[in-house]
């Protein structure tokens, strides 16, 4: 088949909403874009364990501790589903780790903010996992099979994450004056970074059109952000907390809530590595990797030794 007909065949699969699988022919740019998107998503799940891991030993009750532990363990699982989906595109796990550890690959900027109080566990589950779900649900129908199947698993597990966060917020919001203040403070700090999670505005996202065409993105950043703002305003009423953005206002004509200007300078500054915890997060990952080396080597040595021994027994 000449190259152009490979391309035509691929385009027609995409147009007919037929899934692309690892052994199918695909354009280089599609492969590269997917590797970048899936591996960054995987990195975000893995680095995302750190801010919450910070509170596991200090959870206020055994129930909260068990729940937080289960949630963080799920995030590790999400990272692993996604890394293995990316590997089907021809990149190795070690190459991806290397890209993360050298700063070549990014992860979601939200995880470069600190978790100062227990209420942050509520705000993260409610807002950060909430925003992630909004991003991820449409990806269950993305064009690349292994990615779509990983996302189905991820989404099934995510809804408990958001609910446990909301439950923490609700408990604090209905608690003592100090607890309510704590919830409001966490909300205030996590709100803006959460709506930045959807990425730059559509005008600043030149690749959106191609990604939508390839069905590796199904809604634009601004569409998803608006959807998130709309549902969060309603949930905030249930909590009895104040929206951190004073410009939030129902717009009858648009049928959506208007919101205030986003501080994109802050966003880009954190992306570039200057957020409050960028260095701390990356150091934690690198240390875990470096200090775990002897364990990885020992496991390989043990496996090799056992194999040799079993081989010897059979031969005898």
């Amino acid at each position: 088949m000449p190259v152009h007909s490979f391309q035509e065949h691929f385009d027609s699969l995409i147009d007919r909403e037929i899934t692309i699988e690892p052994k199918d022919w695909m354009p280089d740019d599609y492969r590269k874009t997917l590797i970048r998107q899936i591996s960054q998503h995987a990195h975000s799940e893995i680095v995302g364990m750190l801010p919450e891991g910070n509170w596991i030993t200090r959870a206020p009750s055994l129930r909260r501790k068990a729940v937080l532990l289960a949630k963080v363990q799920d995030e590790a699982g999400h990272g692993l589903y996604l890394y293995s989906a990316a590997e089907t595109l021809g990149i190795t796990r070690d190459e991806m780790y290397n890209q993360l550890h050298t700063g070549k690959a990014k992860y979601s900027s939200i995880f470069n903010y600190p978790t100062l109080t227990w209420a942050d566990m509520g705000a993260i589950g409610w807002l950060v996992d909430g925003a992630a779900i909004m991003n991820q649900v449409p990806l269950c129908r993305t064009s690349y099979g292994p990615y779509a199947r990983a996302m189905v698993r991820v989404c099934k597990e995510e809804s408990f994450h958001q609910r446990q966060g909301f439950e923490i917020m609700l408990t604090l919001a209905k608690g003592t004056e100090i607890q309510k203040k704590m919830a409001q403070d966490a909300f205030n700090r996590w709100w803006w970074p959460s709506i930045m999670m959807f990425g730059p505005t559509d005008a600043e996202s030149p690749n959106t059109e191609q990604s939508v065409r390839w069905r590796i993105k199904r809604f634009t950043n601004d569409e998803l952000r608006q959807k998130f703002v709309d549902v969060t305003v309603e949930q905030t009423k249930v909590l009895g907390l104040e929206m951190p953005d004073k410009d939030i206002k129902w717009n009858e004509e648009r049928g959506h809530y208007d919101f205030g200007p986003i501080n994109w300078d802050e966003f880009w500054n954190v992306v570039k590595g200057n957020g409050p915890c960028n260095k701390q997060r990356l150091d934690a990952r690198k240390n875990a990797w470096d200090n775990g080396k002897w364990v990885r080597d020992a496991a390989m040595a043990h496996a090799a030794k056992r194999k040799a021994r079993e081989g010897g027994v059979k031969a005898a």
Partner: protein
Amino acid sequence: MTNDKMNITKNEWPLWEVFIRSKAGLDHKHAGSLHAADEQMAIENARDVYTRRMEGVSIWVVESKYIHASDPGESASLYDPANDKIYRHPTFYELPDEVKYM
């Protein structure tokens, strides 16, 4: 760079494909893949990664290098022989109306 890359890959734990039987009576189904040093670790990792919510009653792991797959580029010729044998389907046969159950 090439040397570096080879070095990295050489130390990687092998890749395994994981198949899970979700409940008694059903087939094992592909769930995904993972890295592990040997088969026992692969099964234990598969339990942690793919069955945190009792998704399985039995796990198979196969080292990925032992999986052989058909070539999608050849599916036309590979499946072609099945295409023209519609008499393999029950709907090919016309039965008189009097035959109620068959």
